[in-house]
């Protein structure tokens, strides 16, 4: 009798050990590319391999898309503006096409040729400044995504006017997120998480089957303080807001998201928007999410909500200037309002 009992106990013990192994600690490397901290949490047999491959890919993407350091593919494109077409790789081709697509969808709120104005405002540098309206009007002539010429047959692209600048800043991180998921899948990872400076993409659920808990940043509090949580799987979550990069002058806040129509920081009723894209419905969930978050932020609550609701698999959390929080219907079950600062009002 005693022996049987011991046997059974041993059996149970070993089975539980088996179960425990899949909850092993994730591979959580931290890297710094595209001007931001990149955190990953990869679970599974090939976790380290996948994680390291992702870091390599991030490095590649940064090198390819940069306009702040020499080299890459975008610099030649910008340098040849008004001169000649330049060859581009499939990734860049993909992004340029995607950018034009979103230019259309957002009715110009998202414009990848906004480069000259971003440079003039200098918000990403240590010396941002307010350009004169004359200068802004002058540079606005160079901003129009429709002028970007893409030749898919010869794999080239060209900017027709001298001085035009393509800036993939509004879509590169999103793309990088998608690339990470692709690499995870190629390495048989079924549970993974990547956060590129606030651009979050999750693959599958957590190893124990639980959903990932992702916080929605409070636009008016320290980084890490939230106004709500999203419980998700196979989703990309991308935010845009007036709190990410800005400078203040004479009491006015100048943030980094320029409105391509005015050439100045967008002035809508939103201070933050978080786009939630279902990866099982939208293949390029993170890339689209990135472009959409900029678009919707510029468009404002009404037009932005219209745009989001017209797209399948896409939902959003809107935070307005008057501190109200709205979510689209698809998030009702996934979003939990949780505002520690007690300043916001959840409008259902």
């Amino acid at each position, binding site marked *: 009798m005693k022996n049987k009992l011991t046997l059974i106990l041993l059996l149970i013990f070993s089975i539980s050990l088996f179960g425990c192994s899949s909850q092993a600690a994730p591979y959580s490397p931290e890297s710094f590319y595209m001007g931001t901290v990149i*955190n990953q949490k990869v679970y599974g047999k090939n976790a380290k391999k996948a994680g390291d491959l992702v870091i390599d890919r991030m490095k590649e993407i940064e090198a390819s898309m940069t306009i702040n350091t020499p080299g890459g593919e975008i610099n030649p494109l910008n340098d040849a503006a008004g001169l000649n077409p330049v060859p581009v790789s499939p990734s860049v081709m993909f992004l340029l096409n995607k950018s034009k697509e979103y230019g259309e969808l957002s009715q110009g709120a998202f414009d990848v040729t906004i480069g000259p104005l971003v440079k003039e405002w200098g918000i990403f540098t240590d010396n941002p400044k307010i350009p004169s309206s004359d200068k802004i009007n002058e540079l606005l002539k160079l901003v129009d995504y429709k002028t970007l010429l893409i030749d898919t047959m010869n794999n080239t692209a060209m900017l027709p006017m001298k001085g035009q600048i393509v800036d993939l800043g509004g879509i590169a991180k999103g793309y990088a997120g998608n690339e990470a998921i692709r690499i995870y899948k190629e390495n048989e990872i079924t549970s993974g998480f990547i956060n590129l*400076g606030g651009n979050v993409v999750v693959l599958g659920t957590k190893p124990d089957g639980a959903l990932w808990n*992702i916080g929605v940043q409070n636009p008016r509090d320290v980084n890490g303080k939230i106004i709500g949580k999203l419980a998700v799987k196979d989703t990309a979550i991308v935010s845009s807001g007036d709190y990410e990069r800005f400078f203040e002058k004479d009491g006015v806040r100048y943030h980094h998201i320029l409105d391509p129509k005015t050439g100045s920081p967008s002035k809508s009723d939103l201070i933050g928007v978080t786009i939630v894209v279902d990866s099982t419905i939208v293949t390029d969930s993170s890339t689209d999410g990135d472009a959409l978050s900029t678009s919707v932020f510029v468009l404002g609550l009404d037009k932005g909500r219209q745009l989001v609701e017209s797209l399948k698999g896409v939902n959003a959390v809107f935070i307005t200037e008057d501190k109200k929080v709205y979510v689209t219907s698809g998030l009702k079950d996934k979003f939990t309002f949780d505002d520690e600062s007690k300043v916001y009002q959840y409008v259902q």
Partner: protein
Amino acid sequence: MFNKMKKGDLVVGSIVLLLIIISFAGVKIYNSLGSGNGKIAVIRQNNIIIKTIDLDKLKESQEIKIDGDFHNTILLENGRIRFEDADCPDLVCVKTGWLDKNGQMAVCLPNKVSVKIEGSDEGLDGVAF
């Protein structure tokens, strides 16, 4: 001669005593609020969280080097954290010493790095910002 005890002194004295008690209570409450699931050290650079570590779960001491306009070395041990070394001009961060309680913080202003002990947020896997 001007220091004799007068009527007003009692009033001032009791108000001050009351304030001391209230501030003690206030701080105790604040500290216990975040306690929840442990002592999480949050390191921010330029106001963005770059690392969070559960100090209670730390088994061996760890060093983190942060490079910005200046350089900081942060030392983490089980249950506590501090700026160990810095090359900024005033060394305020280093002189602050060990942080081991919820709510405590140390800052290297020149390098725009801050370290604060916060209660964990019931298992958030990440924040979208």
